[in-house]
């Protein structure tokens, strides 16, 4: 990460905090080195390691009673430099906090020497939360105090990923009217490099999360200067003009179904006519069924065509000077947008709409919007590669190519996200560890969430957790009847409660770790932290194995290893020595894990940790299908923008479950949730026992694990009974489940689209291991009939009324940043062999 302003998108969840004094500043951070020397002693430790040393069981938001936050960072105000230099000093304050997110329940036990300190701050936080529910609420109160909102004028604190800072305006500014500071910071952020300094009367406030050591990481050169606050971009030397100016995402979530509109605003900043090409991600289960191009005040709806025909139409229109756009699908989660004949300074908007179902994981629905395609490794002879190239690299081939900004470059492309949530059940909390969010409206079951305007660089997945853990989530079936009398349903199947009463049998755990170049740095540290937790969590009767792969694959030992303390200690050493580098020969890793001699006494669980940055997805899925046997695969997507298509599909094919470990996620929690899942036997052999339901997808109903419902979709004709019945096996026991049927309603018309999309996914799955020539044709006809994107269909729109002059112009690929936490030099640079 070269751009420290990009780090303004902090996790923004707070527990500790402090106030700056006039003329200087004081920053309280837990467990940070009290001097530069101490800081240096800790440079090899990650936050999670530090937690483990401290004996903490969880790095989340749980209280750590008695913790002493004894390190205070003084922030002298630099008069002219526009930068802050931070040092350390001992604090006399003892602070101890716990809580969840800003605005949620926060407890404080503090004795600040300033009587306007912590209690006042907490009061303000509650006040801010209360007022943020009201439209048009001023940012500041009558006394000029900032009403705290988690992203106003916010900055990241380098070396402290779980802290953020913001500016409290002076009384004069506050009285003058709210947005003075935000506007100045927003303006300064656009300078190259951006600068920042406090104005007279302003104060800098920093909020830090308790329980996470502010320990520098080896990966971040800035982090070695523990506690520094940077407001400059030392690495960025120039801004790259790009034809994609802005992306606006508007999502409506009803229950577990999301309807999303993505507006891409193209603008030609050059003096000649161009064609813009943009490779971008969407959720892997997105049913893309709308495409609209807007030129000035004219709006043209694109039409679905067979891909080859759409590409031909686009090429012909482009050659004849018409403004045209084409949307193609390269992977279920990777798309290419082309817009032809954009004249100088012209603006063209493209709107893409899709439906999708939200996954429910461990008490929360997750709304995910991916923002960038990670750089993929393509083994030789990959039939359909995704090429990662430096910005400016021409693409003479027909292969999909993503051009990445260099660490010294940034672009002006930004993103805005608004999510309207109607959970249809009480919401316990709405949180995002990936981004800073605003809650603009909030009631028991409804809320509007927006992305902070200071967190708009599209370089990582936006993940919003809608926590309904307190609600009684039950199985349910939604239906829809179309005009022709054809019925569609969506069934959410929740594991029965008595599943948790049964205990698991001894396990054989095979840990498969991606140690390729794209994993080096923060993703690798997260992966290792999860591994360490897993090793500590095994039972004495379990066995295990660790297999790492990059350009090759190797294992800790030749046979299953007993989970004895000595063996676990040896495994810990092995994990500590692992590092990321080289290519991603995932196939070798998969083969090593699935061909590994089986422990006949135990059920084999393959725990697969990877970012999934490979181009040969289908080859990997085919290998899993062929070699799986009796094993189950639990995939863990590591990093800020993992390949969720591959990871979801691996778990689905592997009869397991998927989990994601973001850079800000506590690895301990994620691994604990895994052991909670496998601590009870899965519900297997699930079958629908009610007549009249047909074409149910996925064709093979996944096994049910504790805390992990599955969603099925299918068709029916005629009237459905009030409930439907399913049969299954739980251990050695036959069980039946009854699910109530919701009456068909007009609001469920997305179900037909979602059914068709799920069927397409099922058919495409089969292509990983069969070459049935009828499958592509079946997918094509289904996609055309339901107006859906697929590998074999595409949306095209042509404005036939206007003809631009001259040649069709230069093709410009929209460059994108590498995902946060991913190193450009180990993934993109052509001289590095991956």
């Amino acid at each position: 990460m070269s751009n420290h302003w990009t780090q303004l998108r902090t996790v923004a969840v707070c527990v500790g905090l402090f106030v700056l004094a006039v003329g200087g500043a004081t920053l309280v951070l837990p467990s940070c080195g009290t001097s530069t020397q101490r800081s240096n002693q800790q440079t090899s430790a990650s936050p999670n390691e530090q937690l483990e040393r401290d004996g903490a069981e969880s790095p989340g938001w749980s209280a750590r009673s008695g913790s002493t936050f004894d390190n205070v960072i003084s922030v002298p105000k630099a008069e002219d430099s526009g930068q802050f230099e931070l040092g350390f000093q001992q604090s006399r304050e003892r602070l101890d906090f716990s809580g969840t997110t800003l605005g949620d329940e926060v407890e404080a036990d503090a004795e600040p020497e300033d009587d306007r300190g912590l209690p006042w701050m907490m009061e303000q936080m509650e006040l801010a939360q209360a007022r943020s529910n009201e439209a048009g609420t001023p940012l500041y109160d009558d006394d000029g105090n900032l009403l705290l909102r988690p992203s106003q004028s916010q900055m990241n604190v380098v070396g402290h990923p779980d802290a953020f800072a913001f500016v409290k305006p002076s009384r004069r500014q506050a009285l003058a009217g709210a947005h003075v500071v935000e506007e100045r910071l927003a303006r300064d952020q656009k300078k190259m490099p951006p600068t920042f300094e406090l104005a007279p009367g302003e104060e800098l406030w920093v909020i830090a999360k308790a329980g996470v050591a502010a320990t520098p990481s080896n990966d971040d050169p800035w982090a070695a200067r523990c506690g520094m606050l940077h407001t400059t971009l030392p690495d960025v030397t120039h801004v790259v003009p790009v034809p994609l100016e802005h992306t606006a995402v508007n999502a409506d979530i009803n229950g577990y179904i999301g309807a999303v509109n993505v507006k891409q605003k193209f603008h030609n900043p050059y003096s000649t006519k161009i064609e813009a090409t943009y490779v971008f991600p969407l959720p892997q289960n997105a049913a893309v069924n709308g495409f609209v191009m807007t030129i000035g005040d004219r709006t043209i709806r694109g039409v679905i065509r067979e891909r080859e025909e759409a590409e031909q139409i686009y090429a012909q229109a482009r050659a004849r000077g018409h403004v045209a756009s084409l949307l193609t699908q390269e992977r279920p989660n990777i798309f290419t947008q082309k817009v032809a004949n954009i004249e100088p300074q012209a603006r063209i908007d493209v709107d893409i709409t899709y439906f999708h179902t939200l996954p429910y994981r461990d008490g929360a629905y997750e709304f995910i919007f991916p923002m960038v395609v990670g750089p993929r490794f393509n083994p030789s002879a990959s039939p359909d590669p995704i090429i990662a190239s430096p910005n400016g690299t021409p693409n003479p081939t027909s292969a999909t190519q993503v051009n990445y900004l260099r660490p010294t470059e940034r672009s002006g492309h930004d993103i805005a996200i608004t999510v309207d949530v109607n959970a249809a059940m009480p919401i316990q909390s709405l949180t995002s560890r990936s981004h800073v969010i605003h809650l603009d409206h909030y009631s028991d079951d409804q809320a509007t969430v927006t992305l902070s305007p200071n967190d708009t660089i599209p370089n990582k997945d936006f993940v919003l957790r809608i926590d309904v853990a307190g609600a009684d989530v039950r199985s349910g079936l939604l239906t829809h009847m179309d005009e022709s009398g054809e019925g569609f349903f969506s069934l959410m199947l929740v594991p029965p409660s008595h599943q948790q009463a049964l205990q698991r049998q001894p396990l054989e755990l095979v840990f498969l770790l991606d140690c390729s170049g794209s994993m080096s740095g923060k993703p690798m540290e997260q992966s290792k932290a999860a591994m360490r937790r897993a090793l500590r969590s095994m039972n004495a009767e379990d066995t295990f194995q660790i297999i790492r792969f990059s350009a090759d694959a190797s294992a800790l030992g030749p046979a299953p290893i007993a989970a004895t303390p000595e063996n676990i200690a040896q495994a810990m050493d092995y994990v500590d020595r692992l590092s990321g580098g080289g290519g991603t020969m995932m196939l070798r890793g998969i083969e090593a894990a699935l061909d590994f001699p089986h422990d006949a006494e135990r059920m084999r669980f393959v725990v697969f940790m990877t970012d999934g940055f490979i181009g040969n997805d289908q080859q990997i899925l085919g290998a899993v299908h062929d070699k799986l046997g009796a094993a189950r695969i639990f995939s863990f997507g590591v990093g800020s923008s993992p390949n969720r298509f591959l990871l979801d599909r691996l778990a689905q094919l592997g009869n397991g479950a998927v989990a994601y470990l973001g850079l800000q996620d506590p690895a301990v929690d994620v691994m604990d949730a895994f052991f909670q899942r496998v601590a009870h036997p899965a519900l297997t052999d699930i079958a629908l026992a009610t007549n009249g339901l047909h074409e149910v997808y996925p064709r093979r109903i996944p096994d049910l694990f504790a805390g992990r419902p599955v969603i099925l979709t299918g068709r029916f004709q005629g009237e459905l009974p009030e409930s439907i019945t399913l049969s299954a096996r739980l251990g050695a026991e036959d069980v039946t489940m009854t699910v109530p049927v919701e009456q068909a309603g007009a609001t469920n018309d997305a179900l037909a689209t979602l059914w068709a999309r799920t069927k397409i996914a099922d058919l495409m799955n089969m292509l990983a291991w069969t070459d049935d020539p009828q499958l592509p044709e079946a997918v094509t006809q289904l996609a055309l009939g339901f107006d859906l994107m697929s590998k074999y269909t595409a949306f095209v729109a042509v404005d036939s009324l206007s003809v631009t002059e001259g040649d069709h112009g230069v093709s410009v690929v929209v460059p994108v940043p590498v995902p946060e936490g991913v190193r450009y030099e180990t993934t993109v640079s052509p001289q590095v062999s991956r």
Partner: protein
Amino acid sequence: MMLRVLLTIVAMTVTALLCGAGERHEARVAQEQVRFVAYDVIVDPVGRPLGAYQVDFAAARPGDITIVGIEGGEHPAFAQPPFYDPKALMNERAVLAAFSTDAALPEGPTLVARVHVRITGDAVPDLTVALTVAAGPGGDRFETATVTTRLAAPEGDDS
């Protein structure tokens, strides 16, 4: 010997030139055989406020046209492009439908949509357009409403 070599070179050059010319000719023909135009779809509710419509737009001879975009109309109530039936589109028919809840609805002949098409060949396509239904804001069907289509004027052409 020299003459034979010379003749061979000349023959190869002529062949190459002819082939190149052929390819260029084919490319030019491919370009010339395709053009993009748009057709306006005009619904006349005959003096009553138009709240909804459904129109069936098609070519009499399949293969004459390929629909490449559907644009909204001129009246603000129908400015957004209408939705189409994807199954009909597979047969190059545009079954278009839209409704409006605006307070101000058109009562006279109104351009409600524009269909952008690719025409292959020089022939002028024989188009058919039929009004499936036109209705008022309350859903009352208009028995006397009509629909027509015409070639849309290119941008900047005021004639």
